[in-house]
Every structure is written in structure tokens, then in C-alpha cells.
């Protein structure tokens, strides 16, 4: 039992969680980042949700504001049955009409409160929405232009998806004003927010689902890793996210809980395809062969990470733990490099671009690549400059950048692969990958969906277009008296089942 | 304390009966330490008795000021007492703790410092500073009383608009006014011993007399004694009962004034006395066809040149400097000063010519605008009206570069020598810089030679070139200022009280030097001074300023003529005769 909890849940208590990032606007259609969702999912809900009990991996999709759903044979028309007992925090009932306003906000330009920003944000998944119709009070139908079997799981995600907000609010305060008065159907209601400091929520007494234990949730924003740690150690907060591998031992020694688990996330190295050297597949393969990921996780992450070999992260419905790309084989790597024309006199050389948080890993990598005769230089940047350089202004000498992302939905592969185009990857160079992704994305055969995604992932792997490296296995830490916390195989957690003991 | 009513006793009696008001015995003071130590006061012993005035005279730099500051334990940081005893009213205070010394300071021994300009706190109004001292010595007084006392004392020192002065900050007062405030400040507690270090150098004759009377009254009333350090033998004759002559840190001769002055024993004393200019001293020399030179220098025989009359050209010499309606106004007061803003005319429509080769004297009461006028002429202060023409060039209209090019031809010697020297640069370098700047010396060694030569001219050893200004005595600094101007061999030299800080023998040397140079190089001087004997001695013509206006202008010979203005006559009446 990773929570160490034995007693019965206790109602009441104020829970303080320390986030490492400032959440974005508390607007269900404009959100981004997991830290945002870890807050906002207590306010807003989707039609579906993932099972956060930790029982299932990959997580099962469960009913939320919808009680059941079905798709027609073409895979393009989705029918949802909505629950009839949910209300927004201001007391207005949730019904198909309200859902429709949510849909129109992001897709119908004729709607008075059509929101360009939300629409753009959701375009990834809702770009292909042809129509949303109210069937009756509790039934709603989505029609897409292509088969979209992953829809229910997408609906349970954090960003670029349709969580449900109270239309009355944006009708009163406008689209930009919504975030100041966030209102949804979730187990907690919004109390206050001070940017840079905290967000306070309190229990929704009229919640349709199981009553949460905790009276209030406070999310404090503590970006400084050391301060966040100190805040937990001193008891100022009950939970922190993004525990540094170096701090795990300290925490455990002092009796804090650092549950083990795997979120649906992944650290990976992206190639810069604008670098002519990198375009050579043998070079990319060599760089994967030359990397000992066991050693990396042991040394850089103190063993509090799992080596990764697949571009689909653990927790993803299409994750295959057996998948392997190119095993650690320095000789093979050197051979490949020699084949590609690099010698000791004229070694392969490039720049590793990182943001300041990944310096240790980069230095480790530099030493590792030196062993196969690759000369690297490190460019460490502040976050802004890093993003700019990594995604749009890469120098032709840049070779690798560090990234972190992932999701529990199979479609993540499509997103992740698209993300690589920002690094100069030309999808036309890998037609079979594009074809495989397309096939998986638009299949109308439910039984083929996961195998198709796995096949696409295999192609990504075989073409050596990216280097997955690790998945952090210690991400949250909790004070000893927090009970009932579960780290499911996803990037967030549920607080309704948590209680504070004593 | 001495009993005022007791009949005057003989010196010997007193020595036995009452303890002396102040007694310094075998005092030795050094600067620096170890091998580098220089002893500036060496075995000085002197005794002050109640009701008497003691004059300490001597060479500039001989250690007079240092001796005086030792009394209250106020030596500069890098100086220290090597040995000696100091008793006040019979009590030993040498080596006493600060706390103990504090009980003597001000109340038993008052001190008027040599450089009065910086001696007042620049951040407080005069009234506030005086009140603080009054309250300190008389804790029983309330503010209105303190104001009364302050006013009385300012009037005592001859300040007429005392009300205004009380409300002024120090920088708003003329040098002479500040000096008088300082005197009032030190005197108002009526200490038993009052030490006055050259208290009247910046003052005109009228005020000088008034001050001296005042100082004597103060010590008379408190039954104390006055120690006055001075270069002016007129002052000595006027006030001193006893006298000591210092040279090189030692007292070379001491005794009752009359005895010492009339029958000097020591060579140096004799040289000193010979160098004292008396009023009208010039005319017998001229009559006798002797070169017009002061005292000892004459005996030493400057191999100077023919008698002065010989140089005087027959026809009128060309005009070098012409002033035409020159005025200078200052804005005073305004927001934040507490005084209403108004325009103050320090120099008011002054016109005169100075011929090439002439010595033009400028006199007037303290604060009459002499320095301001000099600064306008020297191009340091723009005139607010009128024209200043130098050798035909209108300085008020000429471009900055033009004026700069003319700089070496007219030079300025500042009234306050100390502050006109850069504290961070060795004095030799300060002399050498302009010399090199204007190509008067080409190489470094030539410049060094020039420096050595001008230092020698003003009577300072060549190795003083390496000293910094603070390492020199007041008179020595003054001489550096003169040397610096002379090194440029200017045609016109503006001298703002150049010798008031000097002892008479050094003064004589400088005056004679100036006279020699004038003859050799055909220099022209604008000479500002308070000492009328000196002015009469060196000047060809004299102008008198009063409240910024030129009220009188006459040849030096006619100084005592009946036609003199009332202002001039008041000044003349106040001259202190030398015995």
C-alpha cells in the first residue's frame, strides 16, 4: 500500500498543495499544462474521465458528465447521454443546452460568444467537428468529418479538449472575463486566486458525485524547487509536485511519502532536422545506440526514473513495455558513424540545446557521446530563449534538444510527432509514418485502433526520429499525515478521495 | 581662578602664589612615527598668567598652531605628543582622557582656529550653532535668552546685521564674517584661557581693532589670559604683554613684549622685527634712492637692480587692464532657504585702468566686494554687467578658448590658499602642470627645474614639491599658491591678500620678490589687502571699495591726503602702530 493509509477516511481539513508552475487561466477551453489541470479538474469536468483510482493501467475511461456514449459504424457520429443531476456552482443545471453552448463557444463562429482563442486551442481535436446537436435535454450528438474513435479519451484530457464551463458566466463577463469567475460542475468551487501566490477552492456542497473529504484545497505556486521542498518539510504544504530525484532520500528519511509510480509522461531528446548531419539516418541510429539509458537513469536521476525505449509513454493506452528501439551498443554506434563518414579526425559534432533545468543530464550526455567519438557542445538557455531556439530558431549546428511530454491517450503519438515538425522534421520524408498515423487516427475499427497506433509508433522508432530516454518514477511527495492519495498512470491525480489524518 | 580684585602682582609673585592660567612645559610633538617621524614642536615651554595677553609670533610653519591645538588635545590624527606637560589653572591635562578634557574645552580654554572658513558646520544656520554652544555652557537658559546672547555676541564682534546672520548658513557669509562668528562662538563662554590663532588675518583694520579689544575684554572679564598667535606686529604692539618667538618648532626668545621688541637678543627675532613694515616706510627709501625693499632682505642685499625711480618711464605707460562699469550680482535666498529671494550686488559699476608695470592696490572693509571683483577680473566669475579688457581683449565677450589662451598672461592668487590647492596632488605637480600645459617647460626635468626654482623664489625647499597640501602650514600653502602663479610668468598678477597668512619675514621675502620680479619682468599687479602699510609700500595707486562701489582712487603717496573719502579715513584711523 503506497499511501501507508490504514484508517478510515476523515471528513474535513484544509489541504495545501504546492505547484511548480503558475497555472494558466482557469478557463476550461483555454487551459494548458498539467499543473493547470491539476487545479482546474476540481472545478470543471468533462463528459468522460479517466479512472484515477490507480487500479487500471492504462486508465479506464469512466462516465463523468455523460453517463454513456456510443459511436456509429462510420466512427464519425458520437452520441452522449448526459447526467441529469449535475449543476454548475451557481446552481444552474447542466444539460444538453449548456453543453451546446460550450461546443459553440469553440466551433460556431455565429455564436455571440464564439471564442477565437479557445477555438484555436482546441482545433487539434475539434477542427474536424462538423456539428454538435442537442438531441434532447440529456442527449447530445457530435459529428466529425472523419472517424474519431479516440474521442472519449480525448474528452478526459486536460488541454485542447472540451471541459465544461458554465455558459452563464461568459455570457455575463465575456470570454476573457471567465477566468476571473471560473464556474463548472466539479467537486470544488472557486474562492480566490492571487497570481503568483495561491488559488483557493472550497468544497462544493451540491456536488453530484461522491462527497469529497477535504473542506478546502489551496494550491500554492512555488516554482523554486528548494523552497517547495522546504515548504513541505516544514509542514507549510501537504503535497508538492515535481520532486527532484536528489531530494527523494531526504524526504523519505524524514518520514514523508514519495509514492512510486509512472505518470503518462516522457523525457525525450528531439533531433534538429535542420542540421544536415542529423538528416542522415545512420547518425540518428548511432546516437541512440551510443546511449546507455540504464546508466542515465541511475546516475542522473538517482535511479528514480525508468529508462524509456518507446515514444509512447507508460500509462498511454498504446504503451508497449516490450518495445525496444536500438539497444546500447557503442561499437555499433561507432561503426555507423564511420559508415556515415565520420572519423577521429573529422568527428561528428553538434550542439545540445537545453534549458537550465537539464544541465546535469546534458553534461552527462556530453560525456557519454564522447565515448563514441562524438563531440558535443552544450548551449544552456533560460526558458524563453530555449523554447525559441528549440522550436523555431534552431541553428544548423544544433543537434539535440530536451523535451518532456506525454499523454495517456494513444493520439498523443500524433501530437508528439507533429511537435517534431517544429524541429525541422519534414513529414514528407517519412511518408510511411504519416500514413500509419493517419490510419490509426481515422480508423473506424475499434479493435484495430490500438494495434494501429502501436504500428505507427514502431515506425517512428525504427526511423530513429526521436530518442525517448526516461520516465520519472517519483513525482509527488506528501506529508506523513496525508492519506488516500493515489498516483494513477496519468499526469494528474484525484483529490476527492484524499483526507488528512489527525 | 585668579582673583580679579587683587592688585596687580609682579610676575615673580604670581609664579609663586597662583598657578598660571596655562602652562605648557617641554612640549614635543611629532608627525609620523619611527624613522619617518618629523618633530614639529620641540621643547616648547610657555606660561600664561591671568589678566595678561601672550603673543606667539614666529616663522610660518614653526609649529605655533600645532602647539595651540595640543592644549585641548585636538591634534590632527597623524600627529602625537611625544612628551610634555600642560596645566590649566594648575591641573595637569596632558594625556587626560577625552571625558576629562571635555570639561576643560570651551569653558576653561577656548580656541579660535586659524582657518575659520571651514570651522562652522555648513548644515546649520549660524543661530542654531551659537545657541547650541550657549546651551552647552549655560544649560539654564531658554531659547529667547539664547537668542539674545547670540545677538549680543554677534554685535560684540562687529556684525551689524546680526539678525540676518543668525538666519544664514555659513556659506552665505563673507570670509571675514565667518571669522567673526567663530570668534563670537569661542568667546561667548568667556573661558579663562582664550587661544586665538591668527584671529584677524581676514579682517580689515577697523574690525581688527574691534576684535582685539573684544578678545581682551573677554579675558579681562573672566579673569583669564589670552594667547594670541599672529604675524602682525601691529597686533602684537596693541595687545601683547608677553611675547614668545618661535622658529623651527622651538621658542627662540621670550619675555615681556617691550623688552623683546626693543632689545631683541636672538638673530631671528631681529630679522623679524626688521622686516616689519611701518606705515610710510617706503618714502624714506625712495628719497634716499634706495631700492624699495622690506627689512632684512635689504640688509641681505638683493642684487636687485637699480633704484625704482629709474624704471619709471617718462611717458604714460600703455593700459594693460581696463574695467568699464563692471558689476556682479548674486541671487540670494529663494525656496528652501527661508530667506526671500533677492538680488545682491557685490560689485557695483566699478571702472578703472591699470597700466602695464603698475601695482594697483585694492582695499576696503571685509565684504566690500574685493575678492568678487578680483574673480571677475580673473575670469573666474562672469560679470553681470560692464566690460573687462585685458590688453585690448574684452574678456567678458571673448570665447572660452580665447580666454584660455590668454590664461598664462594673467594669473590669480587666491585668498584662501588651502582650498585652492588640490588636496590629492603633490604641490610640485600642481605647479608643474600649468607650466607644461602652456609650454613653459618642455621636458619633465625642465618642469622639475622650474618647480624647484619657483619654490626657491618663495622660500621653500625644493623637496616640498613632493608634499601634499595638508602637509604644509597655512603660510606654506600660501606660498605654493604664489609659486604656482609665478611659474607661468604672467604679465598681470591678481593677488587676493597674498601675504596675510605669512609671518613678517616671509612676507617681506615675498613682497620683495614681487617687487624684484616686477622690475625684472615688467609685471603688473592688482594687489588686494587689509594691511595698509603693505599696500602703501608696494602700490602705485590705490582704489577703495565700499559695498561694491569704488569710492576712492588715488596715488599711494596721497594716502593721508585730506581729500580722502570717509571710508578710507576710517580704515586709516584703525591702523595699529608698531612700536
Amino acid at each position, binding site marked *: 500500500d503506497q499511501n501507508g493509509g490504514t484508517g478510515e477516511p476523515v471528513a474535513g481539513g484544509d489541504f495545501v498543495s504546492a505547484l511548480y508552475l503558475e497555472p494558466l487561466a482557469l478557463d476550461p477551453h483555454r487551459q494548458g499544462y498539467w499543473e493547470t489541470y491539476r487545479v482546474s479538474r476540481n472545478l470543471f469536468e468533462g463528459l468522460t474521465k479517466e479512472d484515477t483510482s490507480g487500479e487500471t493501467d492504462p486508465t479506464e475511461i469512466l462516465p463523468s458528465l455523460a453517463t454513456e456514449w456510443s459511436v456509429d459504424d462510420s466512427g464519425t457520429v458520437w452520441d452522449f447521454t448526459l447526467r441529469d443531476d449535475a449543476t454548475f456552482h451557481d446552481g444552474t443545471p447542466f444539460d444538453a443546452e449548456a453543453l451546446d453552448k460550450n461546443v459553440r463557444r469553440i466551433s460556431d463562429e455565429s455564436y455571440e460568444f464564439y471564442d477565437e482563442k479557445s477555438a484555436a486551442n482546441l482545433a487539434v481535436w475539434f477542427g474536424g467537428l462538423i456539428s454538435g446537436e442537442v438531441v434532447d435535454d440529456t442527449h447530445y450528438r457530435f459529428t466529425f468529418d472523419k472517424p474519431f474513435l479516440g474521442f472519449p479519451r480525448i474528452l478526459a484530457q486536460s488541454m485542447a479538449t472540451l471541459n465544461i464551463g458554465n455558459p452563464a458566466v461568459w455570457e455575463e463577463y465575456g470570454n476573457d472575463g471567465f477566468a476571473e469567475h471560473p464556474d463548472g460542475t466539479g467537486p470544488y468551487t472557486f474562492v480566490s486566486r492571487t497570481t503568483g501566490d495561491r488559488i483557493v477552492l472550497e468544497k462544493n456542497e451540491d456536488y453530484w458525485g461522491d462527497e469529497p473529504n477535504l473542506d478546502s484545497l489551496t494550491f500554492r505556486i512555488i516554482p523554486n524547487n528548494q523552497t517547495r521542498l522546504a515548504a513541505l518539510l516544514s509542514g507549510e504544504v501537504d503535497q508538492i509536485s515535481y520532486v527532484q530525484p536528489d531530494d527523494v532520500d531526504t524526504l523519505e528519511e524524514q518520514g514523508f511519502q514519495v509514492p512510486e509510480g509512472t505518470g503518462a509522461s516522457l523525457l525525450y531528446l528531439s533531433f534538429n532536422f535542420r542540421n544536415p548531419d542529423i538528416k542522415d539516418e545512420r547518425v540518428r541510429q548511432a546516437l541512440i545506440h551510443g546511449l546507455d539509458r540504464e546508466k542515465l537513469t541511475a546516475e542522473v536521476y538517482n535511479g528514480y526514473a525508468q529508462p524509456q525505449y518507446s515514444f509512447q509513454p507508460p500509462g498511454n493506452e498504446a504503451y508497449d513495455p516490450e518495445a525496444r528501439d536500438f539497444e546500447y551498443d557503442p561499437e555499433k554506434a561507432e561503426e555507423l558513424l564511420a559508415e556515415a563518414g565520420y572519423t577521429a579526425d573529422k568527428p561528428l559534432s553538434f550542439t545540445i540545446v537545453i534549458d537550465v533545468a537539464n544541465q*546535469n543530464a546534458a553534461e552527462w550526455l556530453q560525456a557519454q557521446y564522447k565515448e563514441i567519438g562524438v563531440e558535443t557542445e552544450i548551449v544552456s538557455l533560460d526558458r524563453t530563449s530555449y523554447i525559441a531556439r528549440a522550436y523555431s530558431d534552431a541553428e544548423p549546428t544544433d543537434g539535440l534538444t530536451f523535451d518532456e511530454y506525454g499523454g495517456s491517450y494513444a493520439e498523443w503519438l500524433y501530437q508528439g510527432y507533429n511537435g517534431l515538425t517544429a524541429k525541422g522534421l519534414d513529414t514528407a520524408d517519412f511518408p510511411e509514418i504519416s500514413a500509419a498515423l493517419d490510419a490509426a487516427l481515422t480508423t473506424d475499427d475499434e479493435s484495430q485502433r490500438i494495434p494501429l497506433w502501436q504500428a505507427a509508433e514502431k515506425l517512428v522508432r525504427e526511423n530513429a526520429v526521436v530518442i525517448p530516454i526516461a520516465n520519472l518514477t517519483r513525482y509527488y511527495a506528501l506529508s506523513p499525515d496525508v492519506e488516500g492519495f493515489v498516483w494513477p498512470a496519468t499526469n494528474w491525480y484525484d483529490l476527492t478521495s484524499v483526507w488528512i489524518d489527525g | 581662578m585668579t582673583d580679579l580684585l587683587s592688585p596687580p602682582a609682579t610676575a615673580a609673585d604670581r609664579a609663586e602664589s597662583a598657578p598660571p592660567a596655562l602652562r605648557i612645559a617641554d612640549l614635543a610633538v611629532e608627525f609620523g612615527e619611527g624613522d619617518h617621524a618629523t618633530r614639529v614642536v620641540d621643547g616648547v615651554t610657555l606660561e600664561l598668567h591671568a589678566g595678561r595677553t601672550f603673543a606667539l609670533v614666529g616663522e610660518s610653519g614653526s609649529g605655533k598652531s600645532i602647539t595651540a591645538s595640543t592644549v585641548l588635545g585636538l591634534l590632527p*590624527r597623524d600627529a602625537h605628543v611625544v612628551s610634555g606637560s600642560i596645566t590649566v589653572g594648575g591641573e595637569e591635562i596632558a594625556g587626560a582622557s577625552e571625558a576629562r578634557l571635555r570639561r576643560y574645552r570651551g569653558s576653561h580654554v577656548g580656541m579660535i582656529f586659524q582657518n575659520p572658513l571651514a570651522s562652522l558646520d555648513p548644515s546649520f544656520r549660524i543661530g542654531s550653532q551659537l545657541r547650541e554652544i550657549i546651551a552647552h555652557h549655560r544649560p539654564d537658559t531658554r531659547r529667547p535668552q539664547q537668542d539674545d546672547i547670540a545677538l549680543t555676541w554677534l554685535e560684540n564682534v562687529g556684525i551689524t546685521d546680526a539678525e540676518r546672520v543668525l538666519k544664514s548658513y555659513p556659506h552665505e557669509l563673507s570670509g571675514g564674517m565667518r571669522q567673526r562668528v567663530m570668534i563670537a562662538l569661542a568667546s561667548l563662554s568667556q573661558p579663562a584661557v582664550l587661544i586665538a590663532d591668527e584671529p584677524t588675518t581676514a579682517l580689515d583694520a577697523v574690525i581688527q581693532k574691534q576684535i582685539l579689544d573684544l578678545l581682551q575684554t573677554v579675558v579681562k572679564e573672566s579673569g583669564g589670559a589670552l594667547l594670541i598667535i599672529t604675524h602682525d606686529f601691529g597686533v602684537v604692539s596693541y595687545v601683547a604683554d608677553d611675547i614668545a618667538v618661535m622658529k623651527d618648532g622651538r621658542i627662540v626668545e621670550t619675555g615681556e613684549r617691550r623688552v623683546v621688541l626693543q632689545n631683541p637678543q636672538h638673530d631671528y627675532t631681529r630679522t623679524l622685527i626688521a622686516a616689519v613694515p611701518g606705515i610710510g616706510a617706503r618714502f624714506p627709501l625712495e628719497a634716499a634712492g634706495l631700492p624699495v625693499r622690506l627689512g632684512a632682505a635689504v640688509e641681505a642685499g638683493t642684487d636687485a637692480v637699480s633704484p625704482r625711480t629709474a624704471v619709471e618711464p617718462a611717458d604714460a605707460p600703455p593700459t594693460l587692464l581696463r574695467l568699464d562699469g563692471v558689476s556682479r550680482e548674486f541671487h540670494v535666498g529663494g525656496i528652501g532657504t527661508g530667506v526671500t529671494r533677492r538680488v545682491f550686488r557685490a560689485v557695483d559699476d566699478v571702472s578703472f585702468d591699470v597700466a602695464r608695470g603698475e601695482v594697483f592696490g585694492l582695499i576696503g572693509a571685509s565684504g566690500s566686494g574685493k575678492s568678487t571683483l578680483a574673480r571677475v577680473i580673473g575670469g573666474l566669475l562672469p560679470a553681470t554687467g560692464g566690460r573687462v579688457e585685458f590688453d585690448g581683449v574684452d574678456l567678458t565677450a571673448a570665447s572660452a578658448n580665447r580666454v584660455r589662451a590668454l590664461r598664462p598672461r594673467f594669473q590669480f592668487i587666491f585668498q584662501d590658499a588651502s582650498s585652492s590647492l588640490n588636496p590629492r596632488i603633490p604641490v610640485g605637480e600642481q605647479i608643474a602642470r600649468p607650466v607644461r600645459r602652456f609650454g613653459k617647460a618642455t621636458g619633465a626635468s625642465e618642469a622639475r627645474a622650474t618647480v624647484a626654482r619657483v619654490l626657491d623664489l618663495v622660500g621653500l625647499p625644493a623637496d616640498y614639491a613632493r608634499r601634499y597640501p595638508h602637509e604644509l602650514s597655512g603660510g606654506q600653502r600660501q606660498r605654493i599658491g604664489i609659486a604656482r602663479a609665478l611659474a607661468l610668468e604672467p604679465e598681470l598678477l591678481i593677488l587676493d591678500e597674498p601675504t596675510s597668512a605669512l609671518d613678517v619675514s616671509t612676507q617681506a621675502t615675498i613682497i620683495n620678490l614681487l617687487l624684484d620680479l616686477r622690475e625684472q619682468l615688467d609685471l603688473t599687479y592688482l594687489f588686494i589687502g587689509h594691511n595698509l602699510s603693505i599696500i602703501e609700500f608696494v602700490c602705485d595707486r590705490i582704489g577703495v571699495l565700499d559695498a561694491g562701489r569704488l569710492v576712492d582712487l588715488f596715488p599711494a603717496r596721497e594716502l593721508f591726503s585730506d581729500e580722502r573719502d570717509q571710508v578710507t579715513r576710517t580704515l586709516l584711523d584703525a591702523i595699529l602702530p608698531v612700536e
Partner: protein
Amino acid sequence: MVLQTAKGEALTIVRGPRARRRRSSRRIHGQLALAVALLVLIVGATLLAPWIAPHDPLAADGALKYLPVGSPDHLLGTDEQGRDILSRLLYGGQTSLLIAIAAVAASTVLGSVLALIAGFSNDNIAGVIMRTIDILFAFPVIIAAVALAAILGPGTTVVIAAIVFSATPYVARIVFAEVKLQRGKDYVEAALSLGAGFWSVLFREVLPNVAAPIFIYASGLVGIMIVFSSSLSALGIGVQPPTPDWGRMISEGAKVIISGNIVPALLPGLVVLLVALAFNWLGDGLRDVLDPHRRRIRS
């Protein structure tokens, strides 16, 4: 009646203050010597790093993390990547000292010159200079640093530029205040009357009078700026890895302080402190050398 010198009379020998002063003067010279010795030692050691460093400063060994000070093979222990701290300190000095000295020198010169000019110019020029300085000042340091990093590309130059950017207005304002005090002084007027031009007055007459505070201030900046560079490192604007650098060592070491590993940040901190102290003493010493009041007349 005045007595002639009467030797042997109740003489009070005054000794106290003198003895103290002598000691303090010797202390000053000792301090200056110590400063120079320390700097020679530190600079020498960093320059000789390739020969005297016991390990490769980059050689990481995951098995040897956080070895304590005094470990047999790693005298000063190892850092969070198992690298030898002593070797990193030795190599790190090369960059850190270069950055700090170059940046401080540049900002001191720039700031002082601006302040001197502003102090002796007419109100308009002075206004423009001082308002420009205000602008630099008013700009939050990090924004400036990030912008500089974006413009110049990462690396040592950015650190130097950022330091110059943040220190120059500071120096300028402090020197300006000093210069303003000198403006009304008679010696300036005297120099003008002796034909000195604008620049000559500024640099040859006024500068020596403000040099002491400038020296003190600049010497104090050296340590502060190495430390400041560590803050920049924490933001990712700094010396590029793997180059060891004291600032980066401090900022990386700071990542483990709360978990109780104080040494990796403490050691570079101490070295910086030592350097800073040496520069402080040097500055004070120079001040004393410059101060004519402390000079002894050579006779």
C-alpha cells in the same frame, strides 16, 4: 613671566594613541600584502589548474556523489554529479575571475566617466546622462539579462554585459554624488584659472579626488558580481556547461541545500568570499595609498 625650557619637570609622557596608531598603520600594510598574496595565490592556482588539479573537472562518476570534504582521493569532496570539487574550483576560477574583473573594470570605467562628464557639464547634458542612467536602473535586471542573452547569444559575454548593464548605473550614481561634491571646490576654479581645459579638470584634477571611493566601490563589486553571475546561472543565463565556473557551481550547489548538502555550494561560496575579501583589502589598501593623509613624507 615665562619660563625657559625646564627639562625634567613633571613631564607627562603620552603614549596611548600613538601606539595604537602605529599598530593600525602596520595593519594596513599587512592587509595590503595579504591581499596581494592571496590574489597571487588564487590567480596562480587557477592559471596552473591544468597542472595542479588532481582530477578532470568534468569527469563525473555517478558512484561517487557527495563525497564529504577530506575524502582520500577527493580532498574537497565531490558534487551532485560525483565530480571533484577541488579541481572544479581550480578550473572554475579562470572563467569567474575573468568575468568579474573584466565586467567590473568596464562598468567602473564607464560609470565613472559618465558621472564625471555629467558632474561637470551643463544641466542639459547632465540631465540626459543621468536620465539615461535612470533608464538603465529602472529596468529590472533579469529582464535586461534575458534580453541581452537573446541578443548576444548565451555565454560569457552575456554575463559580462549583464553585469556591466546592472553595475554601471550604480557606479555612475555613486560617483556622480562624489563628483557633485567636488564641483564647487576652489581647486577646480584654480585649475581653470591656470588654463586647464574641461577634460583636464575632469581627469587630472577631479578624478584623483574621487578615485578613493571609486576604488573602494569597484573592489567591493568584484565579489558581488561573481555572486550575481551565480544568480544569472540559476536563470540559465550564464557560463555554458560543462565549463566549470564558481557562479554556476554556487547556483547548482544551491539546488541541494535544503536536502542538507551544503558543501557543494558552500565551497565555491567561500572561495568567492576569499577573492572578494582580497579585493576589498586591495581596494582599501589602494585608497590608503592614494590618500595623502596616510602618506609619510619621505625625508
